């Protein structure tokens, strides 16, 4: 019952390199090459298109984490890895919805990805914790923290953008914000 999915598939080694270089083109390549496969899997097994999108994006994040942590070995095809992750994630979600009979219609070969997913779950927990902490932080703290630590802006730029009279005041503000964020993060 499986239909051959026709789309240009980028070379796996190129993809790894692209991920390490944060290449947008690579991301687009991955998305276009492998999303149809995941859509097929999820929609055939009682899911919607939005479910497929969520599952697929999560699997890409797992892939990125793994590659960037430097422990992605090309002992299986990238396609198999993504498919296995999605399958695992979707089974789990079906169990939560308790709509599953435990069977799932398969389209590709699979491999063991439990370890990767455990690691991913830990990271996901941290991500959600951070998201919540930042949400509670409030402005202008949130923007200052994001600009400095995530977008790598210099203190001087932030100082100008927020209209602080001197960099020391800005630093002071940033320090207070970071303390509050830490408190919020470990509270949740």
């Amino acid at each position, binding site marked *: 019952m499986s239909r051959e999915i026709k789309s240009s598939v980028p070379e796996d080694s190129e993809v790894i390199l692209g991920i390490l270089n944060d290449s947008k083109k690579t991301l687009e390549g991955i998305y*276009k090459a492998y999303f149809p*496969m995941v859509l097929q899997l999820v929609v055939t097994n*009682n899911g919607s298109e939005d479910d497929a999108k969520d599952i697929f994006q999560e699997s*890409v994040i797992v892939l990125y984490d793994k590659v960037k942590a430097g422990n992605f070995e090309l002992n299986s095809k990238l396609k198999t890895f993504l498919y296995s992750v999605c399958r695992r994630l979707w089974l789990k979600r079906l169990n939560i919805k308790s709509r599953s009979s435990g069977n799932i219609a398969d389209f590709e070969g699979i491999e063991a990805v439990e370890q990767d997913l455990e690691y991913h779950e830990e990271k996901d927990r941290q991500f959600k914790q*951070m998201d919540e902490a930042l949400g509670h932080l409030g402005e202008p703290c949130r923007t200052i923290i994001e600009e400095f630590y995530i977008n790598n802006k210099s203190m001087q730029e932030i100082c100008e953008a927020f209209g602080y009279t001197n960099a020391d005041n800005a630093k002071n503000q940033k320090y207070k914000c970071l303390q509050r*964020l830490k408190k919020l993060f470990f509270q949740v």
Partner: protein
Amino acid sequence: MELTERIEAYLNGEMSGAELEAFESLRATNPALDQQIVAHQAFITTLTNYGKKKKLMSDMNAIHETLDVQSIKADVIPASTLVRMLWNKYRVNAAVAASVAILAVFTSLLLTGYFSHNATKSDMNLLRRQVSRELGEVKKDQKEILRNMEAPVNPGIFGGTGFALTANGYVVTNSHVIKGADSIYIQNGKGDSYKVNVVYDDPAFDLAILKINDADFETFGSIPYSIRKAQSDVSENVFTVGFPKDDHVLGKGYLSSASGYKGDTTEYQVDITVNNGNSGGPLLDNRGNVIGVIKGKQSLADGTGFAVKSKYILAAVDSLQNTSDAQIVLNKKNQLAGLSSADQYKKLKNYVFMVKVY
């Protein structure tokens, strides 16, 4: 605050020379500081990871926006799978809904009394007569049979009325009178009995035509009445002759409606006294035209007899002639017009028969 700044500077590699050395030696001797540095580093990593993931997600969403999901879907999922998928997804809901619907239907039917017999029973009585026989009579018959095996067995069960259609032995009655018949006889007022065959039977209009099949029969003689083709008017005086008992009985009344039971336009409603056994009797107007065939009455209302309109007799004759070689020559000349009611009855009764169904 200063400490945090120094830790950051240290972690970012912005320290140099003596300052770096001093800080590192401080870290080596001070486990609390070391712990603080590690914790800070981990926290900042979490924060930057958060940022990276956020960016990756927004990048992916942007890519997703450019995709035509529907066309991809149509591409990877064959239509039949789509149907099966929907079925898999909703079959439980469908089963529950169907059960509820069935339950609701039967509950409401039960509650509204659909299943109780009285509600569905028609209050239209068909006027065929069940010939009741005394137990003693039967016993007597049985004795006679035992004494004389050649005596005619006569276990008549149902009876009605019929009237002559033509001189050569065609007789009209109701379809329901002869329903389920094994054999049928007609009997005139003098007690002469002839065997008949059914040559036409139309339960839809409740009409049947019988043909005498008996060597003793010659002819009825010329029929004194004609069959009216046109519709009769309401309020016209009408009469009928039938066999609600084992002898001719005259009933008189008037045409009360141009439609019959539950508005059936193939019937007239007649205000006339009719009883079981009158079925199949001719309904005549006072000029002697047959305008219908008595078929029934409403059980819960007075004076509501029903008669099949005479034009359906003519239609039955037509269709009989079309489908067989039956020779039916209908009488056109009416000999009853202008006679007194008593004379009309005297002439008519010779052409009205008891129909006995075994």
